[in-house]
Structure formats: C-alpha cells, structure tokens
C-alpha cells in the first residue's frame, strides 16, 4: 500500500498536492517517452556496433593481406621507403551530438583533398594502391566503431538512470501523492458530514426550545 505524505489536512495542502501530482504525471510521461527513445537508439546502436565490428575485422584482415602481398612484391625495405615518404597525420573531426539529452560523441575521418596518395605512383604497383585503399577503409571502420561503442556505453548508462526515475515515479511518488489526495478528500468529506449532522442537531434543539 502506498505511503502517505505528512501534510497538514487543509484545502491549501490539497491544492498543492494536486499540483504536484500533475507535475509528476507530466514528468512521468516525458520520462517514459525518453526511455522508449533511448531504448530504440540503444538497440539501433547495438545492431550497428555488431555490423561495424564485423566490418572492422574484415577491413583489417583485407588491409593486412593487401599489405603482405605488396611488401612481398616490392620488398619490405622498398615499400617502407615509399610509405615513410607518404606519411601524413590522420585528422578526425570530433564533436558532440545530443540524443534525448544524452551527449554522444560524433567522429568523422577527414578525407585528404584531391585524392592524393603521397607516394610515387610511377615506382609502385597497383598492389600498393590496393593496400592503401584497404588501410583507409580499415581506419574508417575503426573510427565508426569507436563512435558507436562509446555511444552504446553512454546510452546504456542513461537508460539505467532513466529507468530508476520512471520506477520511482510509477511505484513510489505518484501512488503516495494519489493516496494522500484520496485521504485528504475523505477527511474533508467526513468533516462536511460532521458539520451537517451538527447543524441538524442544532436545528432539532432550537425547534424543541421553540416548542
């Protein structure tokens, strides 16, 4: 049974309680909406994470294979010489994005402009091009996976927090407010009945006195 809130049995308190109940019900509706959206986003992120993980593993394996073939063809030293010359910093654009009040990371790999590879195209074979393409693909997959995985963790934490709020509202706060409102309403009804009975009694006494 819901617990009663300790309040003075006055009409003002009843009005206040009714206002609090209205606010709680409004918040409950919004929190429930938020929970359903967060759950939807979480499930979507989970599905995408599984796919991204698979893509990352495949891309890494492809990149490794392509790199092995290229180094076998050109020789490890020659390939390394070309790759050192083409070394470039990787730039990732990172920014926050908000999903129902949860700040999630948004990562995006910046592609080099003009599609330049950096190494000498005349002295290398298409095997190096292939290794370069697959490596970039692997990098893209890693960044996508990082974004999704962090988002998944944050969404999971927020779902737990929101669930606690929903439960507190649904099973503690709202029932106790409703019970207290019912209790006060019954108390006022009882007072009214007592008042009526008293008035009737006074009426009878006055009538008897008159007689």
């Amino acid at each position, binding site marked *: *049974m819901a*617990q*009663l*809130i*300790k309040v003075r049995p006055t009409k003002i308190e009843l009005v206040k309680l009714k206002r*609090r109940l209205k*606010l*709680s019900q*409004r*918040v409950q*509706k*919004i*929190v*429930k*909406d*938020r929970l*359903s*959206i967060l759950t*939807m*986003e979480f499930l*979507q992120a989970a599905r*995408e994470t599984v796919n991204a993980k698979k893509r990352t593993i495949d891309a890494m394996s492809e990149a490794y294979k392509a790199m092995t073939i290229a180094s076998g063809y050109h020789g490890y030293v020659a390939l390394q010489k070309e790759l050192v010359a083409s070394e470039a910093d990787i730039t990732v*654009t*990172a*920014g*926050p*994005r*908000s*999903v*129902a*009040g949860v*700040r999630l990371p*948004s990562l*995006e790999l910046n592609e080099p402009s003009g599609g330049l590879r950096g190494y000498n195209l005349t002295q290398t074979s298409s095997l190096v091009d292939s290794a370069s393409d697959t490596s970039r693909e692997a990098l893209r997959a890693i960044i996508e996976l990082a974004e999704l995985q962090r988002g998944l963790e944050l969404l999971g934490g927020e779902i737990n927090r929101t669930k606690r*709020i929903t439960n*507190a*509202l649904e099973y503690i*706060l709202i029932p106790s407010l409703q*019970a207290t409102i*019912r*209790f006060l309403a*019954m108390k006022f009804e009882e007072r009214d009945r007592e008042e009526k009975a008293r008035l009737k009694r006074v009426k009878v006494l006055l009538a008897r006195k008159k007689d």
Partner: protein
Amino acid sequence: MCPQTIREDAESRYERFLEAYLSTELRLVNSGLPRARRTLAELLLEEHPSVRCSDGSDQAFKRSELQFLSGIIEESEAAELPLPILIELAGDEHEATVLCSGEVELKVLSRILNMPLRYESPGRVRIYKPQLSVVRRKLRTTTQYAFSARTGDEARLR
C-alpha cells in the same frame, strides 16, 4: 483508506528534493534543441558545421550527412532546408511528428522513407516508430528530438 505509516520530516525533505530533480529532468530532455536552426546551404560552407543548443553546447553535424542531404535535393533548395530537422514526441508510444517548416523537409523525408508523405496538420508530418528508426539511422546528427508534455491527441489537433 487509512494511513499505514506517516513519513518523517526527512522523508518529506527527500520528496521536495525529488520534485526539484524532476523539474530539472524536464529541462534536460530538451537541452539538445537548437537556439536557432541554420540552413543546409550555410552549413555546407563551414569547416566545422554545428548549431548552438539551448543549454549553450554545440551540436556538430557530420559532413557526410550534409552531403547526403544535398545529394537528394536540388541545389536551390539547400537554402530552404533548416537543420536540424525536429522530431516531436508527444505521448504516443507508436508515432512521432516531424515539424516541417517547408516543402523541402517533406521531400527529404519522402526520399529517405521512399514513400509519399503528406501533412497531418499544417507544418506537421506524422511518422511511425519503424520509420523514425530509418530516418534516425540515415540522419543521425541532422535530426533532433523535441519532447512535449502534450498528449498525442492534443498534438494531432494543433
């Protein structure tokens, strides 16, 4: 009904705290709403496209998403597409309302969902949860949720 137990003062203090906390929760859910929306044409010109949110933070847009959007509409329409696209949730668990200020947003949604859409009421397009999931998958940073305390019926009447 008669009272089982009467709470102590400490508990009523806890309740007041909970009430204040809930009011904060209301502000938190809509903290990601933009202060002002910006058009796709403007955002495409920026190095780091973003908008300022109501809580003062920034919402970053992915360039790949902006390019995807510019690919599905005419070049001239980019100046008429305000971003982020707002999706209102108003009490109904099975549907959401996309707030469309112009025909371009409707066109974008139709292209993404691959089906014709129409206005439910002026400036509002109703979509269902599975469709919402499709839209969010394609436009992760360029859409934003708006939580409303109105009921689904009230939202429909507007």
